[in-house]
Structures are given as C-alpha cells and as structure tokens.
C-alpha cells in the first residue's frame, strides 16, 4: 500500500510539474528555426533540437534554414539593346543570426520576414545584381562586328563573357543577400537554367549562321561549348543528354549546326557538378518551343476598363 501511494505521488508530481512549472518544450526539426517572442517582443532565434521556452514566450513564426538550391526567374532585363530574361539557380540559406552578427537591432529587423517575403526580397536582390552586372558587362564587351546578333552573345550561357556576368552577379549577391538575412553558398555555382529571348530576335538567324558568328567572336571555344551555346540560343533544353556507350564509359551529346547529334566522349569538360540538371534523369535534346504565356483575365484585370460617360 505504501509503495502504491509513493508511485501515485510520483505520478501526480510529474503531472503537476508538466502543468505548473513555468516552461514548455518543443522539438524543432533540423531545417527549421523558431522566432521566439517574450511578452510581445522578439527574444531569440531557437532550434534545431529540443527547445525550452517559458510560459511567457510564444513562437511568433518559423522559417526554413536549409542551404538549398532555388530557381529564380528574372525577366525584363536589358543588355546592349537586347531584351532577355534568365532563370537562375543559386544556393543560399536563411540565417539572420549569422548575418546580423553582434547587432541585436539588425537581428530584430531581419526576423520580420516570413519565407515567402524573404524569397521575394531575394528575387529583388538578384534582379539588382543582374541589372548592375549586365550594365557593366555590356560596357566592357567589344563586339566583333556590327551585326545585331553580336549584341546577343553576352547573354548566352557558356560563353566567356557570360561567365564574367555570372561572376559579377555572384560578387554582388555575396554582399547584398546578408542585408536581408540570407547567405549565398559560394561553394555552389550560380547557373543559368533558363534563357528567355524573344523568338523574333533569333528567328531570322539560322543555326549555321549563329554557329559561324560564335566561332568568329570566340575562336578559342571548344566545339562542345560552341554547340551548347547554339542550343541555348535556339531554345534547346539546357540540360545535356547523357548516353552510356557500351564498354567505353559515358559520353555527352549536343545538337550541331545542322540539327544532328554530336557525341563527345569522356563527358562534359565543364563540371557537370555545376549543372544541377545533371542530377536529374537524362532528357532528350529536343528543341522545346517556349510555351506561350497563358492569358487569363482576373477580376482585377476586368475591372480596369471604364466606360466613357
């Protein structure tokens, strides 16, 4: 009987401790962080793992802190008179604590954004970096001739002048992303996974003519890179088709100026680790037409038009 009472008291004590003691426990997953407020004011970032909070504290929001790649589409860019857009793939993580450093006021500013708002801010910073870098590269670039097409070349992925553009973008983002609580992963490259050029701009150039102009402008380029650039301009999927040649290891395929397949043994001389699409199943190297934007009319759209009184 005594033992029974002791056990009963212990259980009651545990229950009382859980309800009466002034703290609560929460398990925070590895990829999340908690923004903890105490009595209505920001107190700290907590997590991951077991987080102990007093009853006076609340979780105001959570944010995702994983270092991962994201695709960001930026349109409405302009370089040397050529309109274009990019979809960039870049790695970054959200870490307001690291970016704020010893400045608690700065940290308080940075925790106000939720994931969606921060993604938008990152998009803004990427746009700013692209616009500034495109201007700089546009001014530095010396076209080999007067043909309008030479002005298109700096925006083509794979060409040295375009690598310069991405280097400048990386440098700028390394400086500007921390101002919004994000940190660029500089161990991962910034990759162009989508290039948007108006069909009208390219339509008059045959693939052969594009290839000829590229070779004139960049005589030192490897054949593979040249054809990859031609493919990018012509709208072919940026991913590279990989085939397995029996007893000979891997090879890669690009579409040549006549539209036929060229096989390069030994893989891509450019690091495929830099191309996130290489991790995906191989896609056929078929030119994908740019899908026309779907034109839907919302209530807001329909409300724009007024009647003349």
């Amino acid at each position, binding site marked *: 009987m005594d033992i029974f009472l002791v056990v009963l008291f212990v259980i009651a004590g545990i229950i009382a401790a859980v309800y009466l003691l002034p703290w609560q426990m929460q398990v925070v997953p590895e990829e999340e962080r908690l923004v903890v407020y105490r009595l209505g004011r920001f107190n700290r970032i907590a997590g991951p793992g077991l987080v102990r909070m007093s009853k006076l504290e609340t979780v105001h929001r959570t944010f995702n802190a994983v270092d991962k790649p994201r695709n960001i589409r930026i*349109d409405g860019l302009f370089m040397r008179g050529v309109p274009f857009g990019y979809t960039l793939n870049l790695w970054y993580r959200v870490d307001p604590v690291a970016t704020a450093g010893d400045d608690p006021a700065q940290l308080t500013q940075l925790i106000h954004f939720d994931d969606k708002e921060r993604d938008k801010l990152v998009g803004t910073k990427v746009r700013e970096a692209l616009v500034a870098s495109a201007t700089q590269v546009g001014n530095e670039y010396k076209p080999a001739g007067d043909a309008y097409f030479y002005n298109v070349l700096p925006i083509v992925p794979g060409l040295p002048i375009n690598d310069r553009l991405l280097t400048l973008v990386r440098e700028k983002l390394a400086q500007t992303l921390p101002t919004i609580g994000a940190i660029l992963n500089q161990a991962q490259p910034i990759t162009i996974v989508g290039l948007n050029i108006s069909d009208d701009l390219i339509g008059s150039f045959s693939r052969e003519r594009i290839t000829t102009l590229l070779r004139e402008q960049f005589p030192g380029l490897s054949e593979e890179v040249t054809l990859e650039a031609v493919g990018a301009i012509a709208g072919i999927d940026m991913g590279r088709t990989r085939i397995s040649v029996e007893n000979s290891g891997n090879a890669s395929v690009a579409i040549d100026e006549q539209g036929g397949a060229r096989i390069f043994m030994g893989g891509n001389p450019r690091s495929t680790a830099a191309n996130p699409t290489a991790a995906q199943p191989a896609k056929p190297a078929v030119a994908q037409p740019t899908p026309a934007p779907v034109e839907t*009319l919302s*209530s807001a759209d329909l409300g724009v*038009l007024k*009647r*003349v*009184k």
Partner: protein
Amino acid sequence: MTNTITPRYGLTYRQSEITLICEAAKSGQSLCFVGIAGTGKSNITNFLHSDPYNYKPHWLGKETGTIHFPVIDGNTWDQTPEGLWKQLLAALTETTQHLPQPPADAKITQLYQDQKALSDLKARVNWLCQEQKQQIMFILDDFDRILQLGPLPMLEQFNALRSENRGRLSYLIFTKKLPHVLGRNHELKGNSKFYDLFSNHIYALGLYEHEDARQMLTYLNEGAGKPLGTRDLTIIESLTGGHARLIKVIFELWRGAPPETADFVAYFLEKNDVRDECQRILRGLHPGEQEVALRVAREEETADDQEVIDHLMRRGLLSNPGKLEWFSPVFAAFLRSYTG
C-alpha cells in the same frame, strides 16, 4: 472619290470620346482606349491629326493651333527601339513642320543609333514644349505589339520624355486588348511608370451610336452615287450594330449584289468578307473573352461568366442584361456557327 455633301463624320462624331481626349490633351493627361478590331478609330486619329473638316476649334478653342497630334502606327514598327524613336520623330516633324525648327546641337555625338534616334526625338519634343510652348499628344495607334514585346526600358522612355515636359506632353494609346495584360511578360502593371501615366484612364472604345453609323452610311452611299435607299441603309445599320468595318463590308456587298432574300443575316453570313471580319473581331479579343462570347452566343453561359459578360457589355459588344443581345445579329450568328 466622288465629292460628297455629307462629311465622313459629323461635328458631334464620337462626342464623348473626343471630349475626353481634348480635355486630356489640354491638361497633359495620357489615356488609353481599348477597342475591338474595326471599330472606326481611324476617324478619330484622322480628326485629331488632320482635321479635314475643321472641327477642332469647336473642341479645343483658342488652343487649337498649339496642341498637336502626331500619329504612329504600331503595325509598322520594326521591333527595335531605334525604329520606334524614328517613327515618333518622323510623325512629330511632319505634324509640326510649320513651326520653327530647333537648332542643331553639335556638342553631343551619340555613338549608338538607337541612342541618337532617342536623343533627336527628345531634342525636338523639348524644343517644342519648353521653347515654343506647344502641347503634344502622341497618338500611339495599334500599340498592342509594342506593349507586348517591349522591352520595358524602351517603354519607360515615354515616361522620361513626359517627365521633362509635364503638362505639355501626353499620349493617346489605342489597343485591342487590355494594355497591362499585353505587357504581362514584363509586369507592366506595377513596374512601369509609363503605364502609370494612363492606368486610371483606360476606356472602352465602343461602337458607333446611331447618328455616327447613319452618317457613315450616308457618306458611303453618296460616294457611290446613292445606289441604296433609306430602307436598305436602315437594315444595314441594324445588321452591323454600329461596327464601322462591318458597315463598310456589308454596304459594299449590298451595293454589288442586293440580297434577294429577307433572311439578311443568313445571306451575309455566307459571304467570306463578312466571316473574315467577324473572325477578326473574335480573334482580337482576349482568349478568356472569346470563350465566354462563344458560350453566350450558344446560351451556355454560366454564373462564373458574369464578370466577363459585364466586361463585354462595357466594351459595347453585349447589351440588355436581362436577355443578352449582341451588337450585331450577323456577329451573333457567326459565333453560333463558329467551330474554331
């Protein structure tokens, strides 16, 4: 062309629209009209630009000689910024050739052709507005493709031009579709100060009222030697519902071969010219508008279509909310028979 007694359009032609445009031109306010294909905006541009019947003093008063309306046609744009600036400059030069010319500026040499063209345009606009105290309203006709293709920085130059000549420079834009939907690729709404200039002044350019439609028919009839009687003209007016190009098409067909049947709708619907024009009207609508229009014609509209129906009524295509009626029975029949 035979010299007609009846002018192509009267003094009160599109009275509401002309009033709006002239008030805007006087105050330097930009505006946009969205009108279906063939709705007769060429008369508006003709009146503003050339004023063959000398109506402008009625609308502009003592400012008639100091407000100019150069016109550019978006259909002839060569898809380059340089081409656009040259079009604007050529139109402006032609419209203001009677005024003193600006002195040449030898201090600045532009290296790129598009920058030179823009610089020349700016110089002329600034000279006219700031030195000569003139007012300019550029008429940007059929501007759909330019808004769609951009690029945005090119379009923003319109705002830059206007900012330097506030109150004296404005734009009258004509499109077939909603401008912000056309410019969705570069997020015209929200991103463009040029769009902000007229975003609160986007109007539907409706079809002709009875007076204007009858004036047009009378003008056409007189020009052809009055082959048609009053009854015929009345029937054509009711068949076409005030759509200017349909009026012209059906008038010409009737004049060439008067219908021998009383089923005028079926008779004219069989004619290729009429079907082509109806097709143009339909294809000029947004896809969402087209879908609802076809459902309405087949009496298959749903409750979800009401917003678009209201919108089509604002555009003048539909009337009578109780039992929806199309502006033209010929167009209604075309929609019912349309298979895509």
